[in-house]
């Protein structure tokens, strides 16, 4: 039987093909054998530093060979990893660190300037392990970088730690492997807590369904704090394939990205649709541009059908698959887009449940929705999260008893769906004020809570304006008691929420329009914010 802990997949790949490249990171690469050895060493160091099974360890460095070595080391030490968005403000990261009690952090020397603010924001750090050699020297030269009471350890010290057998794999399939923080409507992010089994139930299905093999080269485009990374990392390691890290710089300019995909010989690509839309519109692609690319997976938001069709026309040799699932459920449904694409513009379905997962819609009355009837999608099975870290109440609201009377809890997605005659689910919208932008999940309420903390703000409403490229643009309407610049509010927001949640524009006014019941009239504001109809490119 295949092992149900993530790091055992690395050990298996290292035994099967130690010399095969596991990760390509720019000019550098690392083999499976080396990745296994180095993460063993680092795991021993972590255990020596007091990391216990069940602990949470933060990852605070750019996606790199070092970061991925760190992930496997944390898992081998029996702990769970918590990827921190390096672009998020210290205040938010401080909350996350307090929420899941991060005492140990894996970081890099160039992040040293951020350690102080992180500790000032309340992160209960005791140890920071610096994973890059060059900068570790700088860090040891300049101990001033270490916040008071925090010990900074350079990874090269791992070499001096007593070598020995691999650290004992303490973790079991139902232990927590990682926590991913997503936007929360109350103003604080929530920690989606997932086990080894949760991840691998999806990964194993995907490896089989998409026939991922050792010859494949998978893209790693999404950041580690984004759940698309779960497929990238663990489908690659399970199949013994090579993972190609896509540098942030390469994906900024579409034609450069196309060249990167071609030169890296990527065969399986996975990202949010907006990147693929840019590739379709501005990538300079011709039908023969990407001969190695055989499978294009996308998730996180709706792919506008006209752009999808254009990309499929430019990449006739590739299969396209829409994957769906909130972070709480991993990927839980999929839809293989028929080729050639039909000439229609309505949204493609999110499809049907992956093997072993149960996806069904429940009406407002609590009955199972019939095909054609609108309901809220519920998901049960091995991919569903354990809960929100440290928030039993919210977990109980999200993970409910099976309304059909079945065993085990099911996750209420908040997504409204309808089943089409072919048996595929269509996504219709949200029950609440959660929106997507660039594939990121955003609770508009979290942005409003952040803005309300500004002394000039009387009240505010943040609205999402539908957009063809990024799904939604975020605009803020703010009633102020004293003059304030929009850029000042943007700066204030950026200290509290990640960049992708900072509104693009701020409309300042004396008061916000109200409905007859005295609530802010969001519908009217959203209507007022609609741009003039434009010629579609």
């Amino acid at each position, binding site marked *: 039987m295949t092992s149900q802990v993530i790091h055992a997949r690395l050990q298996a790949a290292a035994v099967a093909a130690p010399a095969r490249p596991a990760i390509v990171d720019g000019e550098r690469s690392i083999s499976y054998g080396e990745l296994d050895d180095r993460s063993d060493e680092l795991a021993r160091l972590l255990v020596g530093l007091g990391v216990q099974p069940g602990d949470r360890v933060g990852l605070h460095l750019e996606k790199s060979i070092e970061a991925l070595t760190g992930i496997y080391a944390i898992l081998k030490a029996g702990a769970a990893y918590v990827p921190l968005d390096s672009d998020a403000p210290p205040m938010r990261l401080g909350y996350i660190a307090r929420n899941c009690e991060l005492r140990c952090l894996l970081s890099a020397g160039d992040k040293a300037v951020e350690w102080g603010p992180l500790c000032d924001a309340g992160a209960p750090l005791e140890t920071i392990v610096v994973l890059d050699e060059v900068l570790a020297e700088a860090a040891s030269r300049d101990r001033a970088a270490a916040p008071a009471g925090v010990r900074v350890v350079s990874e090269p010290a791992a070499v001096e730690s007593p070598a020995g057998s691999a650290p004992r794999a303490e973790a079991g399939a139902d232990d927590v492997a990682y926590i991913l923080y997503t936007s929360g409507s109350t103003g604080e992010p929530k920690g989606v807590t997932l086990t080894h089994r949760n991840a691998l139930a999806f990964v194993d299905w995907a490896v089989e369904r998409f026939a991922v093999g050792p010859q494949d080269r998978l893209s790693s485009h999404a950041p580690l704090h984004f759940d698309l990374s779960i497929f990238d990392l663990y489908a690659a390691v399970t199949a013994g394939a090579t993972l190609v890290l896509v540098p942030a710089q390469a994906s*900024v300019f579409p034609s450069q990205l196309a060249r990167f995909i071609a030169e890296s010989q990527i065969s399986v690509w996975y990202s949010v649709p*907006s990147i693929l839309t840019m590739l379709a519109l501005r990538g300079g692609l011709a039908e023969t541009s990407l001969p190695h690319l055989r499978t294009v997976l996308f998730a996180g938001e709706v792919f506008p059908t006209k752009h999808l069709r254009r990309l499929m026309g430019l990449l006739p040799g590739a299969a396209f698959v829409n994957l769906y699932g909130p972070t709480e459920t991993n990927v839980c449904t999929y839809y293989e887009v028929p080729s050639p694409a039909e000439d229609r513009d309505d949204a493609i379905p999110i499809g049907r449940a992956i093997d072993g997962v149960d996806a069904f819609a429940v009406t407002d009355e609590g009955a199972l929705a019939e095909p054609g009837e609108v309901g809220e999608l519920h998901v049960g099975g091995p991919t569903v999260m354990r809960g929100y870290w440290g928030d039993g109440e919210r977990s109980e609201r999200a993970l409910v008893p099976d309304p059909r009377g079945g065993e085990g809890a099911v996750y209420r997605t908040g997504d409204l769906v309808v089943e089409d005659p072919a048996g595929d689910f269509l996504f219709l919208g949200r029950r609440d004020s959660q929106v997507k932008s660039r594939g990121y999940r955003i609770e508009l309420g979290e942005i409003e809570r952040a803005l309300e903390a500004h002394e000039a703000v009387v009240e505010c409403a943040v609205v999402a304006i539908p957009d063809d490229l*990024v799904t939604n643009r975020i605009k803020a309407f703010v009633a102020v008691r004293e003059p304030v610049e929009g850029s000042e509010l943007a*700066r204030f927001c950026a200290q509290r929420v990640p960049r992708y949640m900072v509104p*693009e524009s701020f409309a300042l006014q004396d008061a916000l329009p109200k409905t007859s019941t005295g609530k802010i009239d969001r519908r009217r504001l959203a209507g007022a914010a609609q741009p003039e109809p434009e010629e579609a490119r």
Partner: protein
Amino acid sequence: MRTEDILRAFIVDELGFAGAARDLTDDLELIEAKVLDSLGIFQLVTYIEEECGIEVRDEELLPANFSTIASLAAFVDSKRAA
């Protein structure tokens, strides 16, 4: 208005630049400083095509033309002159 100022105004007003307009100098490395990401570039291209009446070809969408406000303005002005 100088092309530089038109571009600066767009970045501040429409791309959610979270700093003061004066920090957005002509020589600031827009991508390194994370002022522009892939989608920001995309919006910017659409804007300059409409606003400045030029067409940006796929192969012109490169760091050399888009790294700073100065390089962007030079690119736009040269396209206009052509």
